[in-house]
């Protein structure tokens, strides 16, 4: 009976595969499935007629014992020969796939790099927190993520007199025993006895621990199956990974690859490559890494609503966002009202609240466009964007000995450039090729703070190329193709940067000691050979642009000029996109690539077409930053209301409504001053200098620190924090600083020393003095002879850029009018309440 039934089933399955195309198996670029070698296997990817993944729901049956198929669709080779796997989908549809199995009888020599090292990577042995960190773990080190197999081989075979390997009884090798936890292992029991990884290690030792030959194939690229897919929310998708080798062979490495999602809140991924989408619409990329290759699986998760009402198309931005919304079935919000727009765009462009006059005068045709143009041309725009660039260009006095003049001059230079809308390529050129003395040529101050060649390389890559190259300084970049060779190639452009050292003043005996004065930074171009040493190979690397070939730079020329030439050339793939993405993030709250300075193949933009279009527009305009900004704020996309709907409230990536955000630290500080009419007085700058205008990020202010002002100690925009915290609330509710602003009087000195104060020589806990300055608004209000409703209307216009609604007016009028004796206190309360209201603290 049994003998008869098998062929029947076989024929039936094949017939099913031929007839109905309803169930399909993704083979990718393979013509058929071929499993070569012991422990070879492949992950089947089964898709139903509706393009849904049913890999984990399907039933698998084989016609013989040559292979084993797990419930999750993983086929493992068991014996040489052929096999057919019959697959039945959850809806009963059928298909089959033929599998050829070879190299089981004849055991092919194992290649250490291609097979053993991936085991260490897969189980985290060579991760940065374990044996992969420099110096290793408990005297056993491996190269980080297996990027240096030759070293790994020596660590395992030769170190500690070869005790890690025991060829006479491979299972007894320390390497195997530790990994399986048979002898105590701090990292735990990583590999199960008799699992494929275990068998592989044992087999490798049995074979005499071969390393492989130079003729052995190397992995050239990865192929992910499927490469992209439309997924439902809360759905699952299994992915498979094929490695293409230099000899043309293809091997399934699904169980050896590593997976990582670029947006875990949209889609997560398991160790075995099972992708699970969450409750959010949008897109996510799953990065796949195997050896030094990376690839990505992209999934798009539509919401599936009908999109009928779309805001008007104002420019190319709207065309592309609307395309995305329609594709995702994500209905966008409506356009915001005029008052909201006025406050939003003034905060975003000028870093301040709209004035009373601006709020009153915001009428007439085309008012939004006119407002945008006026703000773009204003001094406030220059101030605000200078603060932004000044932070990432690390303009700060890092030591008290630094000359404040240089900091101020650099700040002034940036501001000047922004005010006259210097083309961005020119800005970068003048900055990076700066030479001379710091005050005379202000951008030299960048080289004062970013002194060492590594910092220069990394900052430039991060700021202008959107690439985080830091990792590649000490090892191959784990998420990118960049190696140390690339890192030092870029470094080499800075190899001729020299600093003029002042002559040493001879200290004569008997004379009073001269105070040490820090000399101004003076940058010059030396004529040393333009190259940097790659510490891995110990060989000099010529200046090489990312992904390019080495350049021969003659003596007497500045290699930095060559770098800038490449950066700003129209076909540079990074430069324009990086700035476009930064601008986009400033106004939309989230970069098209997030984080905005970490652009890589494995972290793709959420709307690639839009990023390309923005970059193209920026290039076409000859790097006109202001024109780019104008396009963004003019778009309907920027002007959407912050009211989300039930349909789109989970959207984080597609800008279907305006996500409210807390004001920047400096902007909030200034806004409170603007409301309370307080004249700021920061130390070391002219009185009246607003927080946004501060030329130096090291100027002390507890308020600004508390609300997340960046420290300007790195090139990362991420230094700025928009978080909300308990100490912030305490400060807004109850600090002397706020009290003075609200009440217009100096509060009692903080922390009156009590009688019981210990007479110790040092003070009790350190409390830095803050400048407590009374505001003048309260006096203005009390002197104003108009009625309460008019005064409240004005306060609303100043604070929120809008008129109060009837109920609000009634509430506050009643609050302030019924107790004439306590008028002052009542208005103080109102000012306090406005500052602490949600509408004030956020940009909506």
């Amino acid at each position, binding site marked *: 009976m049994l003998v008869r039934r098998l062929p029947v089933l076989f024929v039936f399955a094949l017939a099913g595969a031929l007839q109905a195309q309803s169930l399909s198996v993704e083979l990718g670029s393979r013509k058929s499935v071929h499993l070569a070698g012991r422990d070879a296997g492949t992950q089947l990817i089964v898709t139903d007629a509706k393009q849904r993944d049913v890999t984990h729901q399907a039933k698998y049956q084989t016609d013989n014992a040559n292979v084993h198929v797990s419930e999750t669709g993983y086929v493992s080779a068991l014996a040489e020969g052929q096999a057919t796997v019959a697959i039945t989908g959850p809806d009963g549809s059928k298909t089959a796939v033929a599998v050829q199995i070879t190299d089981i009888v004849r055991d092919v020599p194992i290649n250490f790099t291609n097979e053993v090292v991936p085991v260490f990577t897969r189980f985290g042995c060579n991760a940065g927190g374990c044996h992969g960190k420099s110096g290793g773990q408990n005297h056993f080190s491996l190269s980080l993520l297996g990027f240096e197999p030759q070293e790994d081989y020596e660590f395992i075979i030769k170190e500690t007199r070869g005790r890690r390997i025991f060829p006479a009884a491979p299972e007894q090798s320390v390497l195997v025993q530790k990994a399986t936890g048979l002898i105590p292992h701090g990292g735990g029991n990583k590999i199960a006895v008799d699992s494929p990884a275990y068998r592989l290690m044992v087999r490798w030792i049995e074979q005499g621990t071969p390393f492989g030959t130079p003729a052995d194939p190397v992995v050239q690229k990865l192929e992910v199956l499927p490469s992209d897919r439309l997924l439902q929310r809360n759905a699952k998708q299994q992915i498979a990974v094929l490695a293409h080798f230099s000899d043309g062979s293809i091997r399934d490495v699904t169980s050896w690859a590593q997976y990582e999602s670029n947006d875990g809140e949209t889609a997560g991924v398991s160790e075995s490559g099972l992708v699970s989408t969450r409750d959010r619409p949008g897109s996510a990329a799953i990065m796949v890494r195997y050896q030094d290759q990376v690839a990505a699986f992209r999934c798009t998760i539509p919401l599936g609503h009908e999109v009928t009402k779309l805001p008007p198309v104002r420019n190319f931005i709207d065309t592309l966002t609307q395309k995305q919304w329609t594709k995702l079935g994500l209905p966008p919000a409506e356009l915001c009202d005029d008052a909201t727009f006025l406050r939003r765009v003034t905060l975003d462009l000028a870093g301040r609240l709209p004035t009373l006059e601006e709020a009153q005068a915001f009428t007439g045709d085309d008012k939004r466009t006119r407002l945008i143009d006026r703000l773009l041309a204003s001094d406030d725009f220059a101030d605000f964007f200078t603060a932004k660039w000044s932070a990432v260009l690390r303009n700060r006095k890092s030591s008290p000995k630094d000359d404040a003049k240089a900091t101020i001059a650099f700040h002034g230079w940036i501001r000047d450039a922004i005010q006259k809308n210097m083309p961005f390529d020119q800005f970068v050129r003048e900055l990076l090729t700066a030479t001379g003395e710091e005050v005379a040529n202000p951008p030299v101050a960048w080289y004062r703070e970013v002194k060492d060649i590594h910092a220069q390389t990394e900052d430039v890559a991060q700021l202008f190329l959107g690439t985080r190259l830091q990792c590649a300084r000490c090892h191959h970049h784990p998420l990118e193709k960049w190696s140390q060779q690339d890192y030092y190639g870029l470094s080499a452009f800075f190899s001729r940067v020299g600093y003029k050292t002042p002559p040493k003043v001879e200290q004569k005996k008997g004379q009073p000691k001269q105070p040490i004065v820090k000399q101004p930074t003076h940058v010059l171009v030396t004529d040393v050979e333009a190259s940097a040493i790659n510490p891995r190979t110990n060989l000099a690397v010529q200046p090489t642009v990312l992904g390019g070939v080495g350049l021969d730079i003659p003596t007497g020329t500045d290699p930095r000029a060559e770098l800038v030439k490449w950066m700003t050339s129209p076909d540079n793939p990074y430069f324009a996109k990086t700035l476009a993405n930064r601008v986009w993030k400033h106004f939309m709250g989230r970069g098209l690539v997030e984080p905005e300075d970490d652009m890589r193949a494995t972290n793709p933009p959420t709307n690639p077409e839009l990023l390309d279009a923005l970059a193209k527009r920026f290039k076409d305009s000859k790097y006109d930053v202001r024109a780019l900004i104008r396009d963004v704020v003019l778009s309907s996309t920027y002007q959407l209301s912050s009211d989300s709907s039930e349909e789109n409230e989970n959207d984080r990536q597609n800008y279907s409504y305006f996500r409210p955000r807390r004001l920047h630290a400096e902007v909030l500080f200034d806004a409170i001053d603007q409301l309370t009419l307080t004249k700021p007085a920061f130390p070391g700058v002219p009185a009246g200098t607003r927080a946004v205008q501060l030329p130096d990020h090291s100027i002390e202010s507890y308020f600004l*620190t508390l609300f997340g002002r960046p420290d300007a100690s790195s090139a990362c925009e991420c230094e700025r924090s928009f978080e909300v915290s308990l100490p912030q609330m305490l400060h807004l509710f109850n600090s002397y600083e706020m009290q003075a602003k609200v009440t217009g009087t100096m509060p009692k000195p903080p922390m009156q020393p009590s009688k019981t104060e210990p007479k110790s020589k040092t003070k009790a806990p350190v409390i830095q003095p803050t400048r407590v300055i009374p505001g003048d608004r309260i006096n203005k209000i009390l002197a104003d002879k108009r009625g309460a409703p008019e005064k409240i209307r004005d306060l609303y216009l100043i604070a929120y850029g809008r008129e109060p609604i009837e109920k609000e007016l009634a509430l506050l009028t009643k609050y302030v009018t019924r107790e004439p004796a306590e008028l002052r206190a009542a208005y103080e309360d109102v000012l306090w309440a406005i500052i602490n209201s949600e509408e004030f603290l956020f940009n909506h």
Partner: protein
Amino acid sequence: MLTLHANRSALDCQGTNRRDFLRAGFLGLGGLTLPWLLEQKALAAAGQSSYVKDKAVIMVFLGGGASHIETFNPNMDAPSPYRSMTGAVRTRTPGVLYGGTFPQLADRFDKTSIIRSFRHPVGNHEQAISHVLTGGTDPNGQAQLGFSMGSMYSRLRGTNHPETGMPTYALLTHPHSDGQYNTEKNRVTIGSRSGTLGSTMSPFNPTGGGTALENMLLHISPERLAQRRDLVQEMDRLRRRSEARPVREHLSEFEQQAVDLLLGGAGQALDLTREPRSIYERYDTSRFQIGKKVFEPSQMGQQMLMARRLIEAGAGFVTVQSAGWDMHADNNNPGIESGMEMLGRPLDKALSALLDDLEQRGMLEKTLVVLTGDFGRTPTINRNGGRDHWANLCTLALFGGGLKMGQVIGQSDRQNRAPASTPIGPHHLLSTIMHHLFDVGVMRVSRGVPSNLLRLVEDHRPIAELFA
């Protein structure tokens, strides 16, 4: 979230005037609202907080990694590099010795349990600090996973004390003059994070600089704060639109915490000038100058005193951060001998003052003091007279808490290299601390306890000798 105005039906924007506001606000504190509020909180908490014991933890964290040898395992029978370089002092228990800079702590061995088999696998500062402070929930210290033990306490206990409003989890650091010390401070801040538990479980850091301390002392009358808060809530309510909720959520939680804290008067607790002079001086370590490149007076005494006051005011988990214990004898750090002299002495004074003070106030039974750091230090001495990182044997001592004290738990090997008895790791420390703070039996049957947290408490045994 409970709000102050939530039960006042009288609050109607059309029909109230300032007098009404005043009265309501006044009643809010004098007669009706506050007790009601507390009662509501008690009711809300009843479902889950019956497992909360009246216990507290002060975690004294010696950043940089204090030597296990020169503190509590001087190993004086061993030859030179393996024994304490600062000599040893006797305790009253024959055979138990302390490192030479701890005479006062040695006198208090009866209140102490020394763990000599504490180890973990992480040998870098930042990672080790995260690993230890998270009780091993951050397995490799990469700060991607896990959360600090304090945040876990805060999650299980509630973020603020129901009566005083004091945040239940506090971290005491202060800005240092020495750059290296600041780096160490930042590492402890990272290790004290709330991580995957969410930012509301972050530690409250009143001494972090600025005016944080004085902001906690209410400058206006409580009635007036209540009125203002009513006003702003009413304004927010009138404007409320259909904006995405998450934006607002944390803001209102923190607002509520701030109000609780200000009205509960917890800020008074932080004013050290209220402490009698004799007590203050008993703690005071400001005559000890500490640092490497720049020196500053040691604030350890003040921090310990602050920790005690915080516990009195309702905090349950206070981390005290100390820096400078990375005694490599290099550019940034002193060697073992001079370093222990510089930092060991103030620790000896401050910690013994804390133990005495807690005992005199009857708080020692309630408060478990934990002394640990990044890791221990190499049993060998480097060529400059320093000891380097050594996680295979780490420093750990526990004091008070109503647990069994006056004992040495576990053994190290002869050369102070590794545990010679069953190793104790950060997971065991977490379990020990949680068993001290909570009634785990009740917790197991309480609703609303996240199963992953319960599993953490139960997966590893607490250190058995302490509960004997």
